[in-house]
């Protein structure tokens, strides 16, 4: 057995005289096919058992390994065996993403609208306008979508963070500038302000606003 793997030993002539070993290029092909098709890493011994007499898989591996250097898959050593593996930097390809597009929730789109119209705006201000508290998840979602980002802190007690819309937001909605958003007058003339009444009657300000009671209405709605 060993004699076949190491043709330079004194027993080599037995193998060589009877069988002509295939050329190294062929041996490389064989190793390539074996490594590809086998369900686990293969040792040199296993390879030479499967290959024709006189082959030297160890040598074939050396050249084959070079051949795969820098390729999308590489020849790697696993213990005393060999295997073909995806190049480490391409691991990201082994993920299949399925993208599902959903409509933004009502809470999210309202929050986004308020930020777009009133930016920079604090969470407390958003809550005041919407009349309900804004959940952390909603803001996180918008941040993650990169439609809003943090603006400068408000110079009021508590120094609350503000939110502004991003370039991605403008890009998505085909706006050059947040100021291009139609004003209330235009919304009204487009019939958008006469759409749907809130479920309750005239709502007072919400229960929610513990974060920042200092902001005044006047500041919020000036344009």
């Amino acid at each position, binding site marked *: 057995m060993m004699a076949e793997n190491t043709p330079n030993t004194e027993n080599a002539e037995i193998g060589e005289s009877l069988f002509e070993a295939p050329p190294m290029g062929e041996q490389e092909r064989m190793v390539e096919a074996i490594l590809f098709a086998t369900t686990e890493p293969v040792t040199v011994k296993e390879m030479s058992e499967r290959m024709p007499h006189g082959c030297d898989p160890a040598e074939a591996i050396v050249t084959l390994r070079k051949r795969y250097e820098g390729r999308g898959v590489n020849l790697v050593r696993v213990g005393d065996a060999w295997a073909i593996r995806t190049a480490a930097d391409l691991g990201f390809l082994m993920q299949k993403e399925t993208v599902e597009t959903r*409509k933004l929730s009502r809470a999210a789109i309202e929050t986004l609208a308020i930020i777009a119209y009133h930016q920079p705006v604090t969470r407390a201000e958003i809550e005041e306008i919407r009349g309900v508290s804004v959940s952390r998840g909603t803001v996180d979602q918008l941040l993650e979508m990169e439609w809003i980002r943090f603006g400068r802190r408000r110079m009021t007690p508590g120094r609350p963070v503000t939110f502004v819309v991003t370039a991605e937001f403008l890009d998505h909605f085909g706006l050059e500038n947040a100021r291009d958003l139609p004003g209330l007058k235009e919304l009204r003339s487009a019939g958008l302000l006469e759409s749907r009444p809130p479920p309750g009657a005239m709502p007072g300000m919400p229960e929610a606003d513990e974060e920042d009671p200092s902001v005044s209405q006047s500041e919020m709605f000036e344009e």
Partner: protein
Amino acid sequence: MMADADFEEDTPLSVGDRLAAEALIIDVDGYEGPLDLLLTLSRTQKVDLRKISVLALAEQYLKFINEAKDLRIELAADYLVMAAWLAFLKSRLLLPPDPNEEGPSGEELAAHLAFQLERLSAMREAAAKLMARDQLGRNFFVRGLPEDVTRIRRVTYTASLLDLMQAYARTRTKDEFRPFVMDRDAVMTLEQALERMRGLIGYAGDWTGLESYLPEGWETDPAKRRSATAANFAASLELAKIGQIEIRQGEVFAPIQIRKKARNDG
């Protein structure tokens, strides 16, 4: 499958033929129907299938069937149907064509049978070629160590500019713009009233107060009552105009009454 007569070159051909015929009969179960049998028989003609003599083939088949009958071999019905048809074909091929006879000629039928045999034979060769191809898992192989492709479900959210503006409008109509909002909940339209009253006037026989036509739940809330009354009134005017009802009012501010107009009332 069957004894091959060719291996004994020195035996007279007639004996070989006889052996082959017997082998055919004994193996009758081994055939996939009459067409398969015909194809096998046609091989004994040792010619290209396109040059086959269908007449000779019909005779071979009929002979085969007769021998099988003599040996009391149960033949499936389709073998006998084919025998009957081949006997018919044979007579057509032998007799001069009758100009008054309808239908395809014997030659046409024979040509189609030859085509069927050639096609079956060709498909068998094709099947053999297909199976002789290198096959996956036998001659070539797939990746032995496939890597898991993890499926990631990513949800993206989207919204249109209209969504955005509507959302903003929605939030703003809650407060300062509230007075401009028409409260649709408390509004009954003329159309709604018309539709309702059309269905109801048939049931009220005589003069009935317009108030009794107010839908349930609209009588108590003043805003709703006002809207429904106005809509019902407008609807009753409309119905009067098209001649379906009559309206009367005793005096100013007295209750308005309506009734269905009699059909043939000139």
